[in-house]
């Protein structure tokens, strides 16, 4: 069943929704990366919570005008308007008052959400509001979507994605190098405005899929996940888009098989799973890689200290050092150096002596900065330079 959903075999509507969710995920992942790099990830939370009063008021207004309150384009328009007002409130509070952005975000999200709940209780008392299904906007519900709504979702998700891709350059510039962006004539304020506009559109399109409480996860989680895999500008954006796309696709597919469950939490948990895998297993920043690196570094330090002790004829007492050196065939179990051990020890001592000369000589200042007690000096100096240094080692002996 899930296989069918993943292969888009569950009918036209489910396919549209799944593809739409995937496109939305890509757009959210890419847009969220810029938000994350500008350190404003949680502004998305304020924007999304601020959509609720707009949804409710749009419903009331459409019913009052004699229409069907559940008309999705109207609801989304209302959501966009109130989200924009919420965004303006965040910026107003941050700029004009002494409040920090975090406080402004918290105030706007809780007050707008609270007001939205008030409107929802009003809607519930209306005769037309009994089956309004506005609760679906809280946590997302894609099951049993109308054909027209599914088309709207897929098309608008595609449009948002196109918008993000078209505006990618200035956004990247502002996110990764704001100083350079300003120097080349971009206005940071205007780029931020565009970024917020895109986040707003992503949020509004995502309301029906992920829901307003959790859509912020679709903005943050892919960007954070991508950071674990690369430090390069373009790559972060691409990986974040991919993570977002997979979350949306798989989440919507699972939701198509389990229609009783809200879609949002599923999408978010799929994304979180990808994040967990990255946190644990990514090379470089992952937990496993960090542990391995630490382990390797620790062994190198112990080895080096052990060899220097051997060269200076000092006994080694430290158990880990003895074990490591014995396993490498450098010492016998009783701590006496083997032939290989003696060779390695004198090489380590020579290395250390060369380094101390290099670090004392200001003409080697650049090379001296590479000293960490572990790097062999051959990796840093040319053979000519080494010969020069070696000449100085023997010089005192001649005198």
């Amino acid at each position, binding site marked *: 069943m899930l296989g069918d959903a993943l292969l888009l075999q569950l009918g036209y509507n489910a396919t549209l929704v799944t593809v739409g969710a995937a496109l939305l995920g890509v757009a959210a992942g890419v847009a969220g990366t810029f938000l*994350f790099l500008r*350190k*404003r*990830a*949680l502004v998305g*939370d304020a924007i999304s919570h601020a959509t609720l009063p707009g949804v409710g008021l749009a419903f009331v207004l459409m019913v009052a005008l004699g229409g069907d309150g559940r008309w999705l384009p109207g609801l989304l328009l209302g959501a966009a308007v109130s989200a924009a007002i919420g965004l303006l409130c965040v910026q*107003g*509070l941050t700029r*004009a*008052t*002494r*409040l*920090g952005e*975090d*406080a402004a*975000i*918290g*105030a706007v*999200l*809780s*007050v*707008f*959400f*609270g*007001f*939205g*709940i*008030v409107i*929802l*209780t*009003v809607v519930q*008392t209306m005769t037309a509001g009994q089956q309004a299904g506005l*609760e679906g906007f*809280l*946590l997302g519900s894609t099951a049993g979507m109308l054909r027209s709504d599914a088309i709207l979702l897929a098309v608008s998700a595609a449009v948002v994605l196109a918008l993000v891709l078209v505006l990618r350059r200035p956004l990247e510039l502002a996110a990764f190098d704001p100083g350079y962006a300003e120097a080349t004539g971009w206005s940071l304020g205007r780029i931020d405005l565009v970024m917020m506009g895109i986040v707003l559109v992503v949020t509004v399109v995502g309301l029906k899929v992920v829901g307003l*409480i*959790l859509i*912020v*996860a679709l903005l*943050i*989680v892919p*960007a*954070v996940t991508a*950071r*674990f895999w690369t430090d390069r500008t373009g790559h972060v954006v691409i990986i974040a888009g991919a993570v977002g796309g997979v979350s949306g696709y798989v989440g919507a597919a699972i939701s198509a098989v389990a229609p*009783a*469950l*809200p879609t*949002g*939490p*599923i999408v*978010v*948990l799929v994304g*979180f799973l990808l*994040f967990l895998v990255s*946190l644990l297993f990514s090379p470089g*920043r992952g*937990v496993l890689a*960090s542990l391995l690196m630490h382990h390797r570094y620790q062994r190198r330090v112990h080895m080096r200290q052990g060899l220097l002790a051997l060269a200076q004829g000092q006994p080694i007492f430290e158990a880990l050092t003895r074990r490591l050196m014995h396993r490498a065939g450098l010492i016998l179990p009783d701590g006496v150096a083997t032939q290989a051990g003696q060779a390695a020890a004198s090489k380590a001592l020579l290395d250390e002596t060369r380094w101390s000369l290099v670090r004392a000589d200001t003409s080697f200042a650049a090379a001296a900065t590479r000293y960490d007690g572990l790097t062999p000096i051959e990796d840093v100096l040319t053979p000519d330079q080494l010969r020069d240094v070696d000449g100085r080692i023997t010089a005192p002996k001649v005198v």
Partner: protein
Amino acid sequence: MGAEFVALSLTPILIGVCVSVACALPGNFLLLRRQALIGDAISHVVLPGIVVAFLLTGTVRTGPMLLGAAGAAVLAVIAIEAIRRLGRIESGAAMGVVFTAMFAGGVLLLERSDTSSVHLDVEHALYGNLESLIWLDATGWGSLIDATALAGLPVELPRMALALLVVGAFIALFWRPLALSTFDEGFARGLGLRTGPLGLALVVVSAIAAVAAFDAVGSIIVIAMFICPPAAARMMTNRLGHQVAWSMLFAALAAIIGYVLAGYGPLWIGASASVSAAGMIATVSGIILAVAAIAGPHRTRGS
């Protein structure tokens, strides 16, 4: 304003005031420490904690619920810190990852398990049910000194009053160290204060307030009260003592006006049903903040 008021509105209003003040008190310090969104994060992660506690014990008794919620809050703080350090991720983003994932997990657990026998669902978690905490045994103001009627008080009231007492005692006892470490952490450390444990204690006390309140009123009031009254109070004064006093006043006002507006406001304009009290209280706190941001004497930086 007679017997009906005492039975139907007095206890919800008192509970609302206790919740609001208990959240606003630690909120002052969180706001000044730029940790305002901790309240937001805590109130999201409380949900999975409560659901897991319910699944393990099969009851909705207070003890296991509080333990589960507190456990979830601690787990979230640890996870946020771990992600921030391991991935060198900015704390706001780390917070966003953790609390959305935990909330999503809580919602799915809740939807997958059979909770139809008990009063536990997502809507309830979000905006609680303040209106239902009525005092059926009350027959009028006289019931306030009637022991048998007092025994029928909704259990949330004494519980919330106790939480308020705990929070208030913590703030009063640690007033000086809290103030010092909030404004000048380096200086506080120089004096020998252990600022790390103190900061953690503040978060734990906030979590106690949030968890106790969550059960009665849902998370939306909790988030609003952690931030709005202290933020409005911040526009009124430059002195910490005055700010805390203002925030308590604003919190209590928001609770009372919000509840009255939600319960009676619709009747005044001719509608028949009331609206969500939790939502209205959050809305009123926002209006207070808006007024303070427009007209507060110390609203701008450097004033």
